[in-house]
């Protein structure tokens, strides 16, 4: 079991070498690095995109619940 888990972790590690969390495990540092590579304007627009995507998901879920 433990050997299987170790193997999976190794594969995941190799598949996503950029994935890394902070010392306390709360922050995905790879996401943070991606964000820091952007300009402040690009970060603001990414926030808007995320907001609107969340809104479209919410609307889709509401429609789904209304149908069922």
């Amino acid at each position, binding site marked *: 079991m433990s050997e299987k888990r170790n193997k999976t972790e190794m594969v995941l590690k190799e598949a996503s070498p950029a994935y890394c969390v902070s010392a306390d495990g*709360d922050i*995905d540092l790879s996401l943070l690095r991606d*964000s820091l590579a952007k300009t402040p304007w690009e970060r603001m627009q990414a*926030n*808007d995109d995320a*907001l609107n995507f969340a*809104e479209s998901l919410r609307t889709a879920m509401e429609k789904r619940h209304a149908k069922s």
Partner: protein
Amino acid sequence: MQNLSELMHRLISSQVEFVLVGGFAAVAHGVTQVTLDVDICCRFSEANLMRIQKAFADLHPVHRSRPDLPLELTPEQCASLKNLHLKTDLGIVDCLGEVLGVGNFEAVLKHSVEVELPYGKCRILDIDALIRAKEAMNRDHDKITVKYLKAIKKQQGQN
């Protein structure tokens, strides 16, 4: 449709004297949490408040606590306002006269940095002052933002 970037654009184009604070400032610094509103600290002079009113005039601005009240500021109201919480067609804008942990507009201005946006320059609360402000607020999501901001400081120190 939310468009916080457009709200910023309008504030800058209307020459509103303000500093971006709060979650959207954290986003500008690189925090990857999503924020729902624009928080600004601004000078609460009549002229500046009228610029804010003009900036959002076609976005059906209303007072957040009283959505039945459209934004129609009078000089008397301007003189007594400490904060202005607005809801517009493009999102929420909270205009604050002071920031907890930092101080009034002059103090906030002193602890701000200038960033270049496609349509003009904007002042944003610097990362240390933003950490102080978020620590002073001390809500659960503020604590997470502080962790992000400290991680950003560390990353920037390494580059």
